[in-house]
């Protein structure tokens, strides 16, 4: 009975919602700020998880998200810093992300490499390139400014949580919704999913497996570039070695927890964000004193727990990880 309740995938959300409600009744202001912060923690993870979803739905395992985030945030930061224009930096980051996606497609689709090793190569290359070209002393002219949507941002609680963010936050949420619609309600989505589930049938039905995989992995890379740009140009405003801080890997876990569904992964990421924001708040208000290192561990522990709970119950796209060999007969 207890096990059944705990195993329900809604239980974390119900629990989170109750906790938020409880604290809102106690202290409205602090709770609002915590939940608003949780969006800034959760959104980059959700966006990175979309990269994984787009790739894996077409049958490509992308373990190189971390590398994509690292290298695109790097390029975004330095281009924006040198040109003095955030939009130029954003554009450069998206292009860099697309290039990293294209590289993954080349390695795993054309060269039929082991996809996990292909992703690892992207990660190690990204680390090597960024640490070699990194130079200290660069700063951004500014970060993307916060936009308060008139009217809506005045609503208590929901205003600050949902309608007072930077432009890339809104864009990120919007694109996640677009991806969800596209994946389940458009011909492109149907083709993508069929390529990921049964490439042979998709091929027979006239869908080019190779083209579909190239297209999706490259778009996913560009989206990863956007995520990188969001991290450096809107959220943090600086860049340092190892900037992506494991978000790309956490995103993979969230993707699995969200069952390869954009909305599921978004929910999982927001849950993650709330957990982190609450911990931060507890630290700031010194309700509890936990060593900093333990709060830093929280995302990783949560990731492992989430996977241990959900792994047996979810089903990955069937053709994932396998290069497609056209039958010659």
């Amino acid at each position, binding site marked *: 009975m207890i096990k059944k309740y705990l195993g329900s995938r809604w239980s974390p959300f119900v629990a989170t919602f109750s906790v938020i409600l409880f604290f809102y009744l106690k202290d409205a202001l602090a709770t609002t700020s915590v939940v608003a912060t949780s969006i800034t923690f959760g959104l980059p993870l959700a966006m990175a998880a979309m990269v994984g979803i787009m790739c894996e739905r077409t049958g490509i395992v992308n373990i190189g998200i971390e590398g994509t985030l690292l290298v695109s945030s790097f390029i975004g930061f330095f281009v924006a810093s040198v040109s003095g224009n955030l939009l130029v930096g954003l554009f450069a980051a998206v292009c860099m992300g697309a290039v990293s996606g294209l590289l993954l497609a080349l390695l795993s689709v054309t060269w039929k490499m082991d996809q996990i090793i292909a992703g690892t190569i992207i990660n190690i290359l990204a680390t*090597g390139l960024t640490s070699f070209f990194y130079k200290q002393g660069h700063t951004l002219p500014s970060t993307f400014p916060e936009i308060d949507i008139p009217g809506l941002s005045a609503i208590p609680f929901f205003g600050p949580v949902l309608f007072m963010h930077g432009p890339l936050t809104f864009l990120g949420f919007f694109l996640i919704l677009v991806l969800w619609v596209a994946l389940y309600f458009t011909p492109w989505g149907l083709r993508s999913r069929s390529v990921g589930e049964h490439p042979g049938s998709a091929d027979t039905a006239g869908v080019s497996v190779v083209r579909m995989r190239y297209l999706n992995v490259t778009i996913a890379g560009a989206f990863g570039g956007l995520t990188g740009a969001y991290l450096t140009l809107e959220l943090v405003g600086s860049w340092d070695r190892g900037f992506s801080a494991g978000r790309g890997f956490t995103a993979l876990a969230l993707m699995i927890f969200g069952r390869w569904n954009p909305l599921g992964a978004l929910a999982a990421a927001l849950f993650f964000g709330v957990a982190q924001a609450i911990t931060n708040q507890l630290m700031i208000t010194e309700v509890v004193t936990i060593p900093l290192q333990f709060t830093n561990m929280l995302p990783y522990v949560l990731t492992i727990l989430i996977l241990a709970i959900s792994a*047996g119950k979810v089903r990955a796209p069937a053709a994932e*990880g396998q290069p497609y060999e056209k039958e010659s007969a």
Partner: protein
Amino acid sequence: MVRDESKELRVKYVRSWLLPVIALAIAFAIGALMMKLQGANPLKAYESLFSSAFGSSAGISKTLGKATPLIISGLAVTICLRAGLFNIGVQGQLLAGALASAWAGYAIHGLPLFIHLPIALFFGTFFGALTGIIAGALKAYRGVHEVITTIMLNSLVLQLGEYLAYGPFKEPGQQLARTPEVLSSAKIPDLFGMPVGFFIAITLAVIAWWIFKKTTSGFRLETVGRNKNAAWYAGISVKRSILISMFVGGGLAGLGGAIETLGVVGRYEPAFNAGLGFDGITIALLGRANPLAVIPGAILFGGMRGAGGSMQFAAGVSPDIIDLILALVLFFVTAPLIGKWIKTVRGNEAITTGGWGN
């Protein structure tokens, strides 16, 4: 027929070392290009790199010392690769070993060298193995892909190490976050000016090679690595193989961390040991999952890592170029770019990818 076979074998042999050599050459060439772009003299940089790594007996001793943990971490990756697991967690397992051995080295008092040192080494090995088997158990019983769990464990161990080095394990009266120095009874002594750890590492590589070449246990692991279903059908326990290989791989990595701590660093400091495990991945793939091939790769990497600073001095090149070159080596050795060109036999490659659920 016999002649054909020997010819085929010879071709296979030549190809198996030709690929890494070409990959290295291309990576160094691109590295030179990068230096040129920065206005430095690549020849001078490489010359100082190699002369300080291999040009003197002190340099060679340092290189072999640096190569020691790399051989062992390369082996840790290799063994798991053979069993079909991609152990990215060597870094964390190594840190766990370094941390545990450092504690055993300074906190246990009053023992002679021949008891204290083995105990400290055992602590390192055991905690490395423990870190490894967490990922192994999650894979075997819950079906969680080892790549994710080991990456998460890497970060966990790193944070734990920082916590301990700043907190309970901190050297009294010291500003830096580090443990006290290990007692002399737990330090690995040098033998004829050569690091003893290096010989342990070589021995381990030979043992690993022998196990995969000659024993049924090695054969079992390898069968699971090549085809899980076939292995299961033949009555080999896949779960057991996963647990064993992650335990042994983690233990090796932990031992590598312990040898580095007790033989070189002398204590646990969070910033030390960084990247040893990741180099192990590159070395294992460079050696195409052959335990003996890990040795030359590790010596090369150890030399470059140890002497990277000399390039800064001689040619004004940032030692970070080493990271870039090593990444390029990995790229060229694993991408079938050159492989296709020289038609490498793809016999020795481990297949690691599966869905997240199996």
